[in-house]
């Protein structure tokens, strides 16, 4: 099956440091790809290149097989690439609807010419997408500040889904959550896969990876050092790749 998202030889340097060094990965629809690596391995930088936060120094990004210009977060969003960062990037002072529509606010006309925020409409749409993902949040007009970690994660995911994400990038989706909430988020990932969305997960948690990912890519010092199909590998092998003690079977 063809890749919906592909990177070819992505390189990103910060001054003298090469954070990402010629990395090529591919992602198919309905597939979860885990990107693993130690701190400073370049995972986050790679993700930021794909989501338009950083411009790569070399390499290209293909979407649906065609080269795409991604030079800003807006470009990435326009291509259906949504990113959920570890800090979730929610405005805690705003309500659920306002967050789902952040930067893409829904407006309505008043008196024929005045464009005003359609808060009611945004709340209704928020309710629909939350229902679709089977997420329960008591009041949509409450600010994010009043929600739990899992609810916040759910809002962040809903935001991506609402905007018809084809590719969803999740940075440490379960890191800050309790056990029960971790399970819910992983279930949510499965639901999203079933709906044909391609997912890239960055995670330290081996459990998450083996639970929901189909393939995994391991980075070390900016390089892609190995790719595995999850059901054909073991946690030991993966840890070996991450820390660099195991170089056997680099090419499968």
């Amino acid at each position, binding site marked *: 099956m063809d890749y919906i998202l592909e990177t070819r030889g992505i390189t990103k340097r910060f001054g003298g440091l090469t954070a990402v060094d010629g990395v090529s990965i591919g992602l198919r629809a309905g597939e979860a790809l885990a990107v693993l690596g130690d701190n400073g391995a370049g995972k986050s930088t790679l993700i930021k290149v794909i989501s338009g936060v950083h411009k790569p120094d070399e390499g290209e990004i293909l979407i649906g097989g065609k080269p795409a210009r991604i030079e*800003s977060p807006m470009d990435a969003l326009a291509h259906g690439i949504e990113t959920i*960062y570890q800090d979730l990037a929610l405005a805690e002072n705003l309500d659920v609807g306002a967050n789902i529509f*952040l930067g893409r606010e829904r407006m309505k006309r008043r008196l024929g010419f005045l464009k005003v925020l359609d808060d009611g409409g945004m709340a209704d749409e928020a309710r629909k997408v939350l229902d679709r993902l089977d997420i329960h949040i008591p009041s949509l007009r*409450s600010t994010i*500040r009043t929600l739990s970690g899992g609810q916040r994660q759910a809002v962040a995911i809903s935001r991506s889904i609402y905007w018809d994400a084809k590719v969803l990038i999740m940075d440490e989706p379960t890191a800050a959550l309790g056990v029960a909430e971790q399970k819910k988020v992983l279930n949510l990932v499965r639901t999203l896969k079933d709906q044909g969305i391609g997912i890239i997960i960055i995670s330290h948690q081996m459990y998450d990876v083996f639970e929901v990912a189909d393939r995994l890519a391991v980075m070390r010092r900016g390089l892609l050092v190995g790719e595995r199909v999850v059901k054909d590998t073991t946690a030991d092998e993966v840890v070996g790749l991450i820390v660099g003690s195991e170089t056997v079977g680099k090419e499968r």
Partner: protein
Amino acid sequence: MSNETKADARRGRAASFLGGHWIYLFLALEIIYFSLRTGSFASLNALQILLYYGVQVFLLSMAELFVIVTGGIDLSVGYVLGFASIISIKLMEWLGPLGLGEPLTVLIGVCATLAVGLIPGLVNGWLVAYLKVPPFIATFAMLGVCHGVSELIINGVYAMGLPKLAADIGSGHFLYVTKGVPPSFFSRPVVDRGVKVLEIVPDIVVVTAVVVGIFAFVLARTRFGRHVYAIGGNIDAATRSGIPVKRRLLGVYALSSFLASLAGIVYAFMYVSGKADGGASLLLDAIAAVVIGGASLFGGTGTVLRTMIGALILAVLDLGLRMAGTPTFDKYIMVGVILIFAVVIERYMPEARK
């Protein structure tokens, strides 16, 4: 739920209600207190004086609110006010001899001043948004620049020579009601000596109310306003969701300086002079009004209505103490106490956000 936790919940709700509404209560108590103490405080006349002399703080505090909601601060508004008061008079003085007639001279003078008044804000915004200069430093520097440039223009004295029409607007009222004569708008009817003319709402209060209304709408109901809150709430989230953060910040600082300039023009119209430090002491009142209104200096919260209530609390205090004949030092002490009170309430009785 046990009775005890129920009582706790009730107390929590009560505290939260008080946290959200104490300013209204405080304003009411203030008005009642001064009415009892001075007798003449509760009158149409006192109300109009209060609003008339409050316009600068209303405008400046709204300017400050937009900036504070983004998590910044604008220290230059007071001296931008002074700068604009001078520029407006100098421009009209220069336009006068061209023979355009007073109305056109005043109109062009006002518009040109508002345009020139955008410059300090655009520079502030550019420094803050694009060069990442901390707002405190950027606008503090601008305070000095505006002060210096203003003094250079007027050589250390006042700017004088405002057209009569402008002065008339500055002291005029929206409506005049006289016994036996049909009510007249904007111009004082000619009456015999001793006939009482009831003056209703100073012109500049009307202008200020309209401007406050417009910007309250902008902050609460428009995309720009939503972005201002988002930037203050989480600037990274705003950036990543595609909000043009730099442009918005540029806009916010420009808007702040625009409102400060408007306050400066109003100052010139009211006092028929332009003064470099005309608004210097108003900066702290403006910030105090915003903070009393419950906005956090870390950004993300605050509304125009509550900021105006904050400004009214200060205005009532100012006029009330004056009418009661107490020295103005009392006001400084009171403002300090209210400010601390506001911040403590905000911290320990946070309003349950909807």
